[in-house]
Structures are given as C-alpha cells and as structure tokens.
C-alpha cells in the first residue's frame, strides 16, 4: 500500500524534475528501499523471536526432569536415569511386547521424559510373565539392556548378587532371569497397616472387584496371566507379598516370638529383590503396606 503510493508520487514528480529522465527511477528506488529494509528487519526479528521461543519451549522440558519429585519405576534392565532418558528413542516397543501391559509411556508433563516407559506397580506390576524379559529384547537402542557396557554408570547396590531365580521357571533347565540389576527395592513402608504384622488373615479378591491388574498363576496357566480379581485368596495369615513374589529368595515372612509368648510376623525383603512391584500390586490393604522404592539400591 505504502509502496504503491510512493511510486505514484515519484512518477507524478517526474515531469517537474529538471534533472532529466533518469531522476524518477532513482527517486523511486530511494523511496522503496526503506520499506523493503523495514520488512526484512521485521522478518529477521520475528524469526529470531520464533527460534528463541521454540528452543525455550523445548528446554522447558528440563524443568520436570531437574525437579523430579517422583522417581519413576522403569522397566527391567533400564540404564541409570540420565542415561536412560538420553538413550530412549521414545518408540514404545517395550510397551507392545509386555504380556501384562505393565509398561506405559510418560506424557509431556514429564518434559524430556516424554514417551519414556515407566511402570505404575500398584496398578500393574511387572511379574515377568514373559520369562525372557521381552522389553529388554525389544529395545532398539540399548536403553533397556541385559549387559550394561562398562563405560555406563552403575551405582553400588544396584547390581544383583546373582542372577534372579524365576519361580515359574524353577523346573526349567535355565531357571534364572537374564537381569543384572534391580529396578528398585521393596520396603515395608507401613508396617502398622500390614495384615501379617497385625496377625490377620485375608479372604477374597486381593484388590477388589474393579481391579484390572493381572498376574501369572503358574498352577493355573503358565503362559496366560489371569486377572487378580478372578483369583480370590483364602489365607489364615496374609502372606500375599511373599507367596506371589515371582523371584526366589527375594522376600520371606519373618516369624518371631514376643515376650508374652505370641508369635509375631513381618515380611522381610531380601537382597535378591529385583523391585518388580508384584508385592506392591497384590498388597490387599489400601494404601499398600509394602511399596517399591523405584531405582533405589539394596542398602544394608
């Protein structure tokens, strides 16, 4: 619009110009240049602001990572958290192979953790129904790995003393899981609410009729996990965390005799605990008396 008006003004001025025919062309250029220059400058500034905005928004992803209040329970074989976030390509192949659908992907509110797999053990724990740790097998980048390269960080207390024995495979030629490090460690966080500590038994559906979680019950079907609600229990002393634990020598029921002669019970987590979260899922009290400390080492 501006441009046009100035061109018209220039051509009107032409006949009056004493300098001859070339003058209007020169005038014309002079009149137009600042407009074009201004438009270019605006475009440049706009582009710089846009670049800053895009980078700024992307870097906002660091905020949830830096101030992570919650440490997520990651699938088995996960590298240390910062290595894990760096190497995970956010494809979800681990999600696709999990037979109990324990793995879910994080959302944008986790910043750089977007699309990274995690496990909500209380809702659906990893029970190693797949036997071979399929998610590790599926991972294309080595974010989940059987054998961590020596160059990558390992914290003391994370490696398992020996290959964990999978109870479901007890009679197989190779009864152990190919898993070198723990995912976390179970802890009796609310002993007061623990039924065993109270000396109580448990009857019925461990997590109620609406619970959608599944678990492998080898005596029912080794290859098809069953909904927990379809497998009611009847225990004189509640020991679900011990009996349903898929790993050998990971948890035991400690029995002591009190001064008044009464027997007292308490679940005791052992060093072979891999932190899969089955105990947290199956615990019939709400909130669970036993929980997984995600990505925490064995420390005793």
């Amino acid at each position, binding site marked *: 619009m501006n441009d046009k008006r100035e061109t018209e003004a220039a051509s009107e001025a032409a006949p009056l110009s004493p300098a001859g025919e070339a003058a209007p062309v020169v005038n014309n250029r002079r009149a137009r240049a600042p407009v074009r220059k201004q438009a270019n400058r605006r*475009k*440049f500034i*706009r*582009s710089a602001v*846009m*670049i800053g905005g*895009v*980078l700024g*928004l*992307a*870097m*906002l*992803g*660091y905020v949830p*990572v830096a101030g992570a209040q919650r440490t997520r329970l990651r699938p088995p074989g996960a590298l240390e958290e*910062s*290595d894990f*976030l*760096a*190497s*995970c*390509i*956010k*494809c*979800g*192949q681990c*999600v*696709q*192979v999990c037979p109990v659908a324990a793995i*879910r*992907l994080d*959302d*944008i*509110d986790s*910043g*750089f953790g*977007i*699309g990274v797999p995690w496990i909500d053990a209380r809702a659906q724990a990893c029970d190693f129904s797949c036997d071979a740790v399929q998610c590790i097998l*599926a991972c*294309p*980048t*080595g974010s989940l790995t059987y054998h961590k*390269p020596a*160059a*990558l960080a390992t914290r003391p207390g994370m490696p398992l003393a020996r290959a964990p024995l999978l109870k479901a495979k007890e009679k197989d030629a190779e009864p152990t899981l190919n898993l070198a490090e723990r995912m976390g460690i179970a802890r009796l966080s609310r002993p007061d609410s623990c039924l065993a500590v109270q000396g109580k038994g448990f009857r019925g559906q461990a997590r109620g009729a609406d619970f959608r979680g599944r678990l492998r019950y080898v005596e029912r079907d080794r290859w098809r996990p069953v909904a927990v609600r379809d497998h009611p229990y009847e225990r004189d002393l509640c020991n679900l965390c011990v009996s349903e634990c898929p790993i050998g020598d990971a948890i035991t029921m400690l029995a002591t005799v009190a001064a008044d002669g009464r027997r007292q019970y308490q679940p005791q987590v052992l060093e072979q605990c891999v932190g899969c979260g089955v105990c947290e899922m199956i615990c019939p009290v709400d909130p669970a008396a036993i929980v997984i400390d995600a990505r925490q080492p064995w420390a005793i």
Partner: protein
Amino acid sequence: MSASERLRVMFGAAPLKPERVTPAAQQVHQLKRMTKADFEALKQHARDHQLVNHKWRNRRWAVLLLVNLLFTFSFWLDIQMLEGSLTASRFVGFHLIDLNSALQVMLAHRHVIVNLFIGTATVFVLWVALGGRSFCSWVCPYHIVAEWFEWLHLKLAARKLVSDHEFHRGARSVLWFAFALLAVLSGYTVFETISPTGILSRALIYGPSLALGWVLLLLLFEVLYSRRAWCRYVCPIGMTYGMVGAISPLRVEYRLEHCFHEGDCRKVCLVPHVLDVVIKGRAADLKTPIGPDCTRCGLCVDVCPSGALVFGIKGLNRLL
C-alpha cells in the same frame, strides 16, 4: 473506411471488408493469426485448468494413513507387522529407526549399539531410494493434519481474517544445529519433547496424551499467524530427510517446454522456493530437477494443467 462508407452503414447498408490495409495493421493481424491447432491447444489448456485432479494427493493420503494405521493395528490387533512408532520400529522384525531421532539419541547418549546402527542405516537407504523428504508428505502424521489446517488458513486468509507471516527460512537450519548442540550439551533428546511427529505417532498407537494440546497449539499458530510454519521454518526432521533427499534419484522434474508460467504450482507448494525455476526466464535448461527440500508431495504435479511438473527418476528415461 471512408466517410461515405460510414454514412452508408448508418443508413442501413451492411459493412464491407476494407479494400486496403496499412502495412502496420497487416503486421498486427499477422501476429494475431493462429492455426487451428494453436486455437485448440489454447482452449484445451483453459479447459484443463477447470479439471480438478487430486491423483497424487489421494495416493499420498492413502499411503500416509495406511502406514500410520499399520503401526496402530500392529499393536491393537496384534498383527505385528510394524511394531513401535515412527521414532523407531520393527517391520516384520527388521529394525527401522527414524534418522532424526537416531541423531538425537546418538548425540545425547554417545553410545551406539548394533541394532540402533542397523535400523538407522536401513532407514537411510530406504529414504535415499524414496526421495528423502517424501518422508514428510507421505508418512509424517503431522503433515496431513497440518495440510487440513492449512486449508482453513487459506479460507480465512481469502476473507482477509488472517494473513501469513513469513519467517526467514534459515531459521530451520539454525534450529537444526541448535537441537543437535543441545542434545550434546544437555545429554537429553531435547527435540523429542516438542516433536509433533513423535507425539502424534505415539498418540495414534498408544492412545491420546496431554502432549496433543501442544500439537493443537502449533496448528492454531499455523492457522492464525503463519502458514505451515512448523514444516517450513522449524522441523529438523524435514531438514535431516532433506539432506538425504539431496542424493536421491526420485524427484519432481520441471519441463520448460510445457510450462505456461502461471504459477499455480507455487501457490499450492509447501516449499515454494524450490519452484523458483518455473518463473519465466529462470530455467537454465529444458529439464530441471526440483531441489532436495521438495517433499515429493505431488500437489504441483496435480495442479499443473500442462504437465510441466512430473515425477521422475534420475537416469530413467521413462517418466512416471
């Protein structure tokens, strides 16, 4: 026509052909004379403009939807053909890894395992064969959604309710290097956080996420402020595949003889700078391959009424 002749016509006589025509007028008449073939060609061209042809667009949309649905159904129906998402997947067991995602992971993690290398190399070869940025228009789910919202932008722009604010196209190069540098410096795959391609692909396969809100904001930005801004000025994925496309034999070719220089192709193009050659006087040769930034979407092929833009394979005489 003499004065008496003009009067005779006024009183009722029929006008006669002139007896004498000046040489100047004769010359003009000569220039305006057309053969029948010329005339028919002109009519045909005008008629061709009326023909709406969406051949390549329809094929492309079908392929794009099919690929993305194959991901979805591989998981939902457990048909296990194409497992994973666009960032990384397995096609009947063979690793496929998106080049830009692989780059981000390699730079952030600095540890490349065999599967990651195999998947990346496979995808590199695949897109060298298929045209590089053809990933954008034939596979990327954000592309098709942005295409639909672009339609809205153009409608609003035609009513002067919005206008297109262009950015400097160098912005994408700056961002490509910046995201690469950020991955190295921070040790995180920074770009993946805001990548609408990854977000949409995962949402299609694993269900909706909050991150779709970000994608919607991007689309609104494109509708209200800047046409196709993400694909044109930001997306490093497009830049990565563009570099691959530079050595690809599959591209759109421009044929000067067929061109009427009307510029319809540049109006529909996502990256009109690659079509600079169609401007009258710009083409250096009879045939010119369109540059690597071209997404091989075929919109220009569809819109050109005279077949001046066609898909071609370098070294093959037969044109598609």
